[in-house]
């Protein structure tokens, strides 16, 4: 029994370590993990062959990055005390903002639990501010999205996006909590404040290592099954963008200050899972999108339409419109600032 557990643990650990080591090697050797196909490569091919070539190109380079990202996402969700962090976040103090921003990347919750956690934070009396900060920062900055963004778009743009998204989320959460409708909404849950963190009927069981590793890998696999089909469909679309989208249009509208505004506008309402947004961003970058516009594009995540609708059912449209407009402004501002910092728009 004990020996069996040890063997199982060793096999699963070896699997995870394999991805970590391979990934480290790839980074040290600056081996590229993104598709190399250019518009010229793709354009000459028959229409049906374009997505296949692009996908194959992607998988050849990307399997390692995706395998690493999904394994690590599983390990994080299993081995980091997420429930403890959530409690801290719902403490209703100013520090909750910081906790929400800094710890959000470790939450790899599937999208169907984002909104429940958000409403749970509200019920628990965390206040609309930290709850909103969490809602805005978690989908854009989770570890899965971060790893893929770094690999596909480079660490500079990725870090700029993470930092800007974090700052924007805090500012927006804080601002909304000060608006009349934000206060009004918050007052409904005021009676709940102070409850969380008290003794609760929660005593988690301790599980042996092999069960926990298995649970981690299972969750990684679940995330992969959940995300990859849409991701590959997205890549098919990306392959056509890469092949046929006129470079002149990208050059004209996705560079310079105007480009930042256009990218922020496009990045938002377009409902795309983060990974597809990253892949599509890469295709546009290949076609000439400027770095500033890329950051604005990535920051457009929080105000896509389906998410906004489900949130507005909980908090009302006024709060959603407020944070939507503010996210847009933040996306434009971050794009402009990044453009100035790197010296090219």
């Amino acid at each position, binding site marked *: 029994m004990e020996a069996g557990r040890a063997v199982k643990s060793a096999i699963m650990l070896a699997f995870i370590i394999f991805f970590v080591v391979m990934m480290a090697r790839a980074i040290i050797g600056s081996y590229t993990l993104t598709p190399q196909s250019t518009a010229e490569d793709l354009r000459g091919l028959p229409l049906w062959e374009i997505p296949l070539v692009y996908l194959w190109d992607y998988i050849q380079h990307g399997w390692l990055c995706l395998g690493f990202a999904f394994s690590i996402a599983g390990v994080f969700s299993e081995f980091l005390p*997420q*429930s403890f962090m959530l*409690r801290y976040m719902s403490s209703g103090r100013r520090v909750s903002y910081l906790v929400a921003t800094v710890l959000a990347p470790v939450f790899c919750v599937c999208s169907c*639990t984002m909104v429940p956690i958000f409403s749970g934070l509200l019920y628990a009396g965390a206040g609309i501010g930290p709850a909103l900060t969490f809602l805005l920062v978690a989908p854009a900055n989770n570890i899965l999205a971060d790893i893929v963004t770094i690999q596909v778009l480079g660490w500079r743009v990725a870090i700029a996006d993470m930092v800007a998204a974090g700052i924007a989320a805090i500012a927006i959460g804080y601002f909304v909590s000060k608006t009349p409708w934000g206060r009004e909404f918050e007052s409904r849950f005021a009676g709940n404040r102070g409850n969380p963190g008290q003794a609760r009927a929660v005593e988690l069981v301790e599980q042996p290592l092999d069960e926990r590793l298995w649970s981690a890998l299972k969750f990684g696999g679940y995330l992969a099954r959940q995300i990859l089909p849409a991701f590959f469909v997205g890549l098919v679309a990306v392959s056509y963008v890469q092949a046929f989208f006129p470079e002149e249009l990208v050059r004209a509208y996705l560079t310079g200050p105007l480009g930042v505004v256009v990218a922020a506008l496009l990045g938002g309402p377009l409902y795309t899972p983060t990974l597809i947004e990253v892949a599509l961003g890469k295709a546009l970058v290949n076609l000439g999108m400027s770095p500033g516009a890329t950051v604005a594009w990535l920051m457009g995540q929080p105000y896509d339409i389906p998410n906004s609708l489900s949130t507005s059912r909980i908090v009302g449209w006024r709060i959603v419109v407020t944070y939507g407009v503010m996210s847009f402004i933040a996306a434009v501002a971050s794009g402009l600032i990044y453009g100035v910092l790197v010296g090219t728009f």
Partner: protein
Amino acid sequence: MRKLKVEVIGVNPPCRRCKQAEDNARKAAARLGEEGVEVEVIKLDVSSGETVSRFGLVMSPAVAVNGVVRIMGKVPDPGVVERILRKEL
């Protein structure tokens, strides 16, 4: 004969993982049922006021046995739920 109560805390409408957690809890309940232990399996909504006031903020899916959350933020295998239930007997 002892009676046990299992509450599966998930989102409403249920997502795949919450459904899976409920199924696994029911499998474990059925195994104990064969031995004559009565196990009641109930679903709770993670974001209802009642759930939050009882357990605080939990990550879904979560499994509570006799009113105490034992598993949070993951789908337990039937064997894991069964082991927790047996400890309660």
